[in-house]
């Protein structure tokens, strides 16, 4: 029995499109592995022979360009990034979760649509503009309000970063609330619960994994932000003991120093080591957020 040859033009188009889509699908994986290999290769020489782990993690003295004795302590940089991100998330949680609850549960029709658009617009402001606001508006404001010597500090960078992380947290939190089936709400209402009781006792507990993922993604956003933090934090190597201290972030250090560093030098490799650290932390945060979200879908 003879088979009819089905490989006409449409068959080829079909195959071509399928492989194109496949390429698109795996490209993300290829890129992420490529990027990881690249930063590891650039930083590895330093990790294997120069790096004193105790100095790197516990010494605040980051002095890569010293003539007599360069030191590569990243402790102050890690503390700087952690304090700014921590404050930003603390400030952002009540606003973002509040906004998400209002949009998902209470707002109606037009108000809702306008609010959603406005919140997404917040995400469209370039980070250098945020940095500019931190540098020239927030700085004098903080000096006046709190009577501190300088306004470029954790508070300034934290507020800016909270505003930058709010849209992503709100959007994901709202999705999580929307994903709670309506029959939960209907059942609670049938039992005589008020609107607020339904939200607090039924919707929020049911959406808690999604809300957690929203917060984690906000943390990831804050951790990786560079330009605004560079401009608003004061860029000062300092282990902070109050929110009015200037600090320096890991990202900002790389951005400020990489441009004029000789390729392949110890300083260059040390900056890539900071990059590996950043990459590892953001990867873990995003992976955790993803696993938490998958957790809900399965249960």
């Amino acid at each position, binding site marked *: 029995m003879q088979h009819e040859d089905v490989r006409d033009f449409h068959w080829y188009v079909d195959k071509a499109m399928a492989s194109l889509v496949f390429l698109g699908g795996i490209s993300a994986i290829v890129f992420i592995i490529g990027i990881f290999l690249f930063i590891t290769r650039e930083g590895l020489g330093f990790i294997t022979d120069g790096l004193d782990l105790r100095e790197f993690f516990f010494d605040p003295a980051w002095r890569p360009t010293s003539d007599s004795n360069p030191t590569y302590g990243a402790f102050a940089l890690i503390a700087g990034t952690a304090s700014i991100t921590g404050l930003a998330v603390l400030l952002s949680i009540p606003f973002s979760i509040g906004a998400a609850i209002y949009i998902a549960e209470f707002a109606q029709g037009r108000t809702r649509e306008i609010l959603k658009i406005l919140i997404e617009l917040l995400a469209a402001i370039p980070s250098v503009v945020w940095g500019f606001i931190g540098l020239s508006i927030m700085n*004098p404001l903080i000096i006046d309000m709190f009577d501190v010597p300088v306004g*470029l500090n954790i508070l300034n960078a934290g507020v800016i970063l909270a505003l930058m992380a709010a849209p992503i947290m709100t959007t994901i939190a709202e999705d999580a609330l929307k994903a709670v089936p309506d029959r939960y709400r209907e059942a609670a209402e049938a039992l005589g619960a008020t609107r607020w009781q339904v939200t607090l006792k039924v919707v929020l507990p049911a959406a808690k994994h999604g809300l957690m993922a929203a917060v984690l993604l906000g943390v990831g956003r804050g951790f990786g932000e560079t330009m605004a933090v560079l401009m608003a934090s004061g*860029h000062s190597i300092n282990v902070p003991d109050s929110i009015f201290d200037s600090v320096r972030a890991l990202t900002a250090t790389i951005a400020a120093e990489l441009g004029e*560093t000789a390729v392949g030098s110890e300083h260059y490799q040390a900056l890539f080591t900071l990059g590996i650290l950043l990459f590892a932390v953001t990867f873990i945060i995003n992976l955790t957020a993803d696993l938490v979200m998958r957790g809900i879908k399965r249960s």
Partner: protein
Amino acid sequence: MSTQNLLLSLAAMSMLAGSACGRGSSGRTVIQNKGSDTLVNVAQAWAEEYAKVDPNTVIAVTGGGSGTGISAMINGTVDIANSSRKMKDEEIALAKKNGVDPVEHIVGYDALAVFVHKDNPLRELTIAQLASIYGEGGGVDKWSDLGITVPGCSSDEIVLVSRQNNSGTYAYFRSAVLGKEVEYKLGSRDMHGSKDVVDLVEKTPCAIGYSGLAYATDEIVMPCVKKDDAAPCIAPTIATASDESYPIARPLLMYTSGKPSGALEKYLNWVLSDTGQCIMKDKGYAPVNAVSCG
């Protein structure tokens, strides 16, 4: 743009891509000039003005920092490297190995001014005081340690403003004020440009910063600087940078490979002429010699 102009600029561009200082088919000479961001504005102005003086020579100016210019010189890809610091011995050795013999030309001076907020009563400083403000283990952390009270700065803390650690200005300030072996204090606000230093000092009563004189504004005060207690206090001006009486003034340099000749020599002579030096002065830097500009 007419077709002819387009062809000309294409020819110029292809020459840029090719060997340095080439004579193109159109008879124009292209001089590659690269380096210091401190000098880039002046170099650009010179290039524009020189185009009127000698239309047959095109000066292609790029910035990127002193280090960038010097490594291009070492690799032999530029005719003139601009630098706000001297080439290091190992850089010169490296250049010689590549058959490049760097010759240094001083084209002007830049005074590194110390800036404080306009309400700050500080009017003079010694180098030793500056070193104890900025240097590790220096001990001066409060304005009262200098015997002054700054209005609007109730915490009395000196807010140090500095530059990122790979800037030429940062390196020069360390060698001229702190001494080679001394580190900066940790905890200074390390700004990413001279203009950012001035901006922050303008808005912060407790702050002190340093940068090239060219970046000074009316909103800040520049105290005069004494070499030691016995020396006279010299204000940072174009004149005091020029006669080297101001203690923290640095020469601005152009490096060429070997003694310049031909179009290159003509250009450097013009840069050092009154016309060239007046452009320098106009941009806020000090000329090599006293000039009278119209």
